[in-house]
């Protein structure tokens, strides 16, 4: 696994790229208007969107990363995954249906509905760009490293290929191509994961206790890896990490944006139910893969799996196929790699759309007030290319050795502390106003930056001891600060007449779906019929 050129893996990678291009070609014929570009024409079925949303969540850093962390640290590697699994409950209970009913293309639409559109859009768009941009670079760094190791394509070339393809999907196929690439990938990933998990269990006669004992016997920490405390060493670190991921996942713009692709709030709800089914299964399954990798590969593979353990799952697949170098092992590795490649490509495409929406829909169209629905789509395509080029440049600049934990942490902490609080309060709190949203976003971002700078991966040097804050994921501190900012800004500023009046409208819209984009519209006769989405922009 040192990254020598692997013909079979490169061929598989080529096949995955070819399939995604076919999907993009098909989608391109159906992507003309802005609604089609950002929201796949609101024609995605609930079940399809649910699988695609699960795909958005199952990035390389979750799928390969969680298995790797569990290989390295045992149980503690699972805590992040558990927080993320549960985070789809607040998405279901609080956000998915309401957002579908009240929004159009972006998270900022929901806030701009009742607050002063211009300042709130600027702040929310910047926030979306920060979260998606940072997460995009983190994913690309991981992608380049994984492809380099599996296929033997050098890091810069791998990043370039991923970057170019993600831009191609988005520019030509928009949200429809992205959605279907996600669906294909999620299905491949779940099949590959299930086969590996069942094969691992079969080796231990379907006795999970024996599997755990086998893993413990092969780990220097022994039985300690079955319980907590090997990776997240202090109680406060465990609580903060779990909470940051729990709230942060529910505030990721590229995931929230998915709920605009379905026809109505019922389909949005169905989506989350499918997502939860897949992710709960995945989260339970990843323990078998993670502990299985430890039990079957042993301590000897520590170097081969890489610093974050990302290659533990692919190596486990090869081992189950008969071992590296054997025909069976190489085929198993190549097939598993196909799922990994598809994962990488799909997630980055979703992030590009979210960023392009913030630039073209929020900043260019609504803040600057330029252009029409028609030209917005063109600008969104140009923005996608710009985001792609910037992300590739950023990734190549920081290089494959960069510790992506800092970037992933930043994305989740921003989402949890600066995106989730104002969004939730705009939907649920009558008194909430523009000043509150702006203060909340500012407090959230500033607190996140300060706390991350003071955390172990950054202060006083990379991965150092003795930093002022022990919290790699500082949500425990920054989420309350984000909410506090929203509250302070609101109560210290004057009541906004319009904010108060539009609350009724947003409440009725979000709860009933009356007047939602592409949903049932009251017609003259008082009866409901489906109408094309109105083109007027608030």
């Amino acid at each position: 696994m040192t990254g020598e050129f692997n013909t079979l893996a490169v061929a598989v990678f080529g096949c995955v790229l070819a399939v995604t291009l076919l999907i993009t070609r098909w989608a391109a014929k159906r992507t003309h208007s802005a609604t089609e570009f950002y929201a796949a024409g609101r024609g995605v079925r609930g079940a399809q969107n649910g699988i695609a949303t699960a795909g958005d969540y199952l990035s390389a850093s979750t799928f390969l990363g969680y298995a790797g962390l569990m290989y390295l640290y045992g149980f503690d590697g699972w805590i992040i995954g558990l927080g993320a699994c549960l985070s789809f409950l607040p998405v279901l209970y609080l956000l998915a249906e309401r957002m579908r009913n009240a929004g159009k293309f972006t998270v900022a639409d929901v806030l701009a509905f009742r607050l002063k559109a211009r300042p709130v859009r600027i702040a929310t768009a910047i926030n979306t760009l920060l979260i998606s941009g940072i997460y995009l670079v983190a994913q690309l760094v991981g992608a380049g490293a994984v492809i380099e190791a599996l296929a033997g394509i050098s890091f810069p070339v791998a990043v370039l290929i991923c970057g170019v393809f993600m831009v191609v999907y988005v520019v030509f196929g928009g949200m429809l191509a992205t959605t279907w690439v996600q669906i294909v990938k999620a299905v491949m990933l779940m099949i590959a994961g299930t086969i590996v998990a069942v094969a691992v269990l079969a080796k231990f006669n379907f006795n999970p206790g024996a599997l755990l004992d086998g893993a413990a016997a092969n780990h220097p920490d022994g039985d300690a890896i079955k319980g907590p405390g090997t990776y997240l060493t202090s109680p406060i670190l465990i609580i903060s990490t779990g909470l940051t991921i729990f709230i942060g996942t529910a505030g990721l713009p590229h995931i929230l944006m998915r709920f605009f692709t379905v026809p109505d709030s019922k389909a949005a709800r169905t989506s989350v139910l499918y997502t939860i089914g897949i992710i709960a299964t995945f989260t339970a399954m990843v323990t078998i893969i993670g502990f299985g990798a430890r039990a079957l590969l042993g301590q000897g593979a520590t170097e081969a799996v890489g610093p974050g353990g990302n290659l533990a799952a692919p190596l486990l697949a090869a081992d189950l196929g008969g071992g590296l170098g054997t025909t069976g092992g190489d085929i198993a590795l190549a097939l598993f790699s196909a799922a990994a490649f598809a994962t990488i490509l799909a997630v980055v495409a979703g992030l590009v759309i979210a960023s392009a929406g913030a630039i073209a829909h929020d900043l260019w169209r609504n803040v600057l007030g330029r252009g029409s629905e028609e030209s917005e789509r063109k600008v969104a395509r140009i923005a996608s290319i710009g985001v792609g080029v910037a992300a590739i440049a950023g990734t190549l600049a920081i290089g494959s050795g960069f510790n992506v934990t800092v970037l992933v942490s930043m994305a989740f902490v921003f989402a949890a502390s600066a995106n989730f609080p104002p969004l939730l309060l705009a939907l649920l709190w009558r008194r909430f106003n523009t000043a509150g949203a702006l203060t909340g976003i500012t407090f959230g971002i500033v607190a996140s930056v300060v706390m991350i700078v003071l955390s172990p991966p950054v202060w006083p040097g990379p991965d150092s001891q003795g930093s002022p804050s022990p919290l790699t994921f500082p949500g425990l501190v920054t989420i309350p600060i984000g909410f506090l900012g929203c509250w302070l800004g609101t109560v210290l500023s004057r009541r906004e007449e319009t904010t108060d009046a539009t609350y009724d409208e947003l409440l009725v819209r979000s709860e009933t779906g009356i007047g939602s984009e592409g949903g049932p519209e009251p017609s003259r006769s008082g009866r409901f019929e489906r109408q094309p989405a109105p083109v007027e922009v608030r």
Partner: protein
Amino acid sequence: MNSLAEPGWEALARDPEFRALVASRRRFVAIGTAIYTGYLIAFLALLGYAKDFMANEIGGISLALWGGLSICALTVLMAWLYARRAGEWERMAQRVAERA
């Protein structure tokens, strides 16, 4: 906005059935959110402050791992409970919408 028929939002917001819908849903959501958030915090706190207790095994599997599996199960269970109630809210919303 749809200029054909702009519904009276304030009147709709005062509609008794709409009030009932909002109250019923908010109550369910508030209780549900308190339960799953509380469960997660309690689980994380046990992992942190009762490390040795969570390392005890039942059936060869540590309490920490059982707890993690219970988080997966809780997610599915609470999603199912929400979906079961959602049909009722949908019918209420439909009736409110018909009066719009």
